[in-house]
């Protein structure tokens, strides 16, 4: 009895075993293989491959190993992955998230591998971190987080080499920039407001108050103090307490060019936020009616006394002939001024809260 070993084998169980195999393979095909064929096969040349070094013609440089050479930010991304930043920081702005800039779209992650979407947010989301803080802030914060954000539980990365630290900061500063360079978004961010977005404007008409009325402006003042004053200051001069820590300073609404804004431009900027800065998309937080109240208030803000050359191109060269000041030189300095205003980097009053970084310290004396 004991010597005779029965050979039962797989008889009768072949079919169930095949079913197990088939089930798995079907489900795998449906959930993994098909999405991977369908999800965004984006042409890499259409996207700014900011993580790869390019030559003057915009072609990627290939190193001796046959792989594209990584840029500073590209090496920084490898540091980000190696140091495990993804365990506490997501890069995945959801529709309901506030204060993290515009939400992510299909194609935002093209050419990035491995994924750093993240599943846990012990710290803030970093999708649009680039440009919010100066480089020096990032370096200091990585070395001693609690000196920069009290109560933070981020580990200190003081052990990073100088090179790794520089790369990592370059990567952090690159986050969210890709979206700005996305050809899809071009029209959206360049125009003051897109008329074509009919759904957006239809929604805005709901309960729209009279934006020229004092009542509406009064209502908007309260909303401004609750939501905007922390960055833009109580008088809209761009000098709220948060402004201290920002790389891109909040707008000073007393600048004359804000007077040129139409109601719709105001509304659009408030609703959609300003990409590349900390200005959030208020349409996710406020009702259209509240945003119109804000517009009414913003329109009433006073203009300061600074002297502005409205149109430097209208200077007549001939009228300056024979004068001691060369018109071209003058024109160049006006042009610089005009550009500074256009980009919002012009400082009428250097040395104040909103003063530029280089002049901020030295101007205390006068």
């Amino acid at each position, binding site marked *: 009895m004991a010597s005779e070993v029965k050979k*039962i084998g797989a008889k009768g169980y072949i079919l169930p075993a095949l079913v197990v195999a088939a089930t*798995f393979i079907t489900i795998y095909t449906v959930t993994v293989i098909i999405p991977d064929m369908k*999800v965004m096969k984006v042409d890499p040349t259409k996207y700014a491959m900011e993580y790869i070094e390019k030559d003057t013609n915009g072609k990627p440089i290939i190193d001796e190993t046959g792989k594209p050479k990584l840029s500073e930010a590209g090496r920084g991304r490898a540091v980000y992955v190696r140091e495990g930043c993804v365990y506490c920081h997501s890069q995945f702005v959801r529709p309901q998230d506030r204060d993290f800039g515009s939400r*992510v779209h299909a*194609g935002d*992650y093209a050419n990035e591998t*491995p994924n750093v979407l993240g599943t846990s947010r012990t710290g803030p989301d970093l999708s649009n971190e680039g440009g919010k803080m100066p480089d020096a802030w990032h370096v200091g914060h990585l070395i001693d987080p609690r000196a920069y*954000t009290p109560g*933070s539980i981020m*580990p200190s990365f003081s052990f990073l080499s100088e090179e790794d630290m520089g790369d990592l900061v370059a990567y952090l500063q690159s986050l969210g920039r890709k979206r700005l360079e996305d050809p899809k978004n071009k029209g959206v961010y360049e125009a003051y407001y897109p008329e074509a977005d009919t759904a957006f404007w239809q929604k805005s008409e709901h309960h729209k108050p009279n934006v020229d009325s004092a009542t509406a402006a009064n209502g908007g003042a309260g909303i401004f103090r609750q939501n905007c004053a922390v960055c833009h200051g109580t008088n809209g001069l761009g000098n709220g307490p948060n402004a201290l820590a920002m790389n891109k300073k909040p707008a000073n609404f007393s600048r004359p060019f804000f007077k040129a804004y139409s109601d719709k431009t105001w509304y659009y900027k408030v609703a959609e936020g300003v990409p590349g800065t900390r200005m959030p998309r208020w349409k996710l937080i406020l009702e259209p009616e509240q945003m119109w109240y804000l517009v009414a208030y913003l329109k009433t803000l006073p203009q300061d006394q600074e002297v502005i050359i409205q149109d430097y191109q209208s200077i007549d060269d001939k009228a300056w002939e024979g004068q001691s000041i060369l018109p071209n030189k003058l024109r160049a300095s006006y042009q610089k001024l005009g550009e500074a205003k256009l980009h919002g980097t012009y400082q009428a009053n250097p040395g104040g809260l909103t003063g530029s970084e280089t002049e901020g310290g030295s101007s205390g004396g006068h």
Partner: protein
Amino acid sequence: MINNKFLSSQEGSSAKYFMLSAIVWLVIGMGLGLLGALEFSFPDLTKGISQLSFTHIRPAHVNMVAFGWLSMANIGSCLYIIPALCKTKLFSEKLANFACHVWNLVIGLGCWSLMNGYTEGREYAELREPFDILVLVGLLLLSYNLFRTVLNRQVEKLYVSVWYIMGAFFWMPLVYIVGNRTFVAMDGLNDGILNWFYGHNILGLWFTVLGVGIAYYMVPKMSGKPIWSHSLSMLGFWTIAFFYAPTGTHHLLQSPVPEWAKALAVIFSAALVIPVITVLTNFWMSMKGSWWMLSTNMPLRFVLTGALFYLFTCIQGPFQATRGINWYIHFTQWVVGHAHAALLGTFTFFVIGSLYYGLQRLTGKRIYSVRLVKWHYWLLFLGFSIFYLTLTVAGLQQSAGWALGYPVGQWSLTLPPMWFSRAVGGLMMFFSSCLFAFNIYKTLTAKQSSSDESELDMAVPVGKGGN
């Protein structure tokens, strides 16, 4: 001589070595987890030491407890259960012992390399190429070994545990190949989808299937009563086989992956309630009339506590995978608590019961101290309960913070008490694991031995004294 020692062909040796290695990794892995938890309360605890920074400890902890502890303990139990159920010897003890050495090498070197930042960067699949290949070699050897053992069986019908275990050893190599960047690397969101296909299926098609298979063996064996319904157990197996694979995308519900993939993930996640209810109904109906055994039978108490946590986990899981709830609680510590409830609460409790049961029989020695087993149970149970409840509360605080749009810097200031009590729970669990390892060590080195089945009964009456 060396051959005999390292590649023993003694019956049951591979199961024993897998189980003992697992206990070593449990102590080290839990120690790492505890250190990580302490760093939430004292962020500058290991300042300047890159290996001990939280971000380096975390992948080492996860890989060590998931592959070193839970997988190896489960495999050890399978190597014991499959021959027992098939009434035959393991196909090759040498092969299984070889796989054990390979895995120990991977866990030791792999986790050290993770602490040094040598990582693949995909969550739960951090081990780099050489380790991935070794893990897969070990897995395939074990699969081959167990499948050949089942083919050599001396009983006609396959018990449900055999189904579960064979399923696990069929799916896991596939899941591992798909989930690791060594074998399949993609970019962008595709990489994310693969990441969570792997991240969730290593749980569903490996830990769950093995854990439930082991519990299906242990509950009737320990209680001495047959399983309540065989057909219900098979329904559980087939539904888990059908429903689990596509659920991973529920980790990416608010990301721009295609809507239909998300919908599929949500529907199938919700459907997972079916296998859970069948398994638990079966366990609890089998125990009907014998619940008194919990007061004396410690291994059974471990297994059934695991079943209790299984209920919590698997009601919570489908619930939080639905869009509305996920909208609220995603990205928070609630999810971390849920993951621990599955791997630590449920499957660790299952497999600890099976280790106490199996190791006594494999070594032929009675456990050194029943009192220590009780301490182990209560410290682990209470420590885990503190840990789980704390993370749930912390998660809900975070959810409220995100939903109301408060900046992280504001609501994170309310969390330190949670971080601290989590570390307290972690300390209790770490201490319980040390007691466990000590107890097993003393059992193995003890002179006494007994081949009488009733002598090494795990059911030691309370009245007989602690030791």
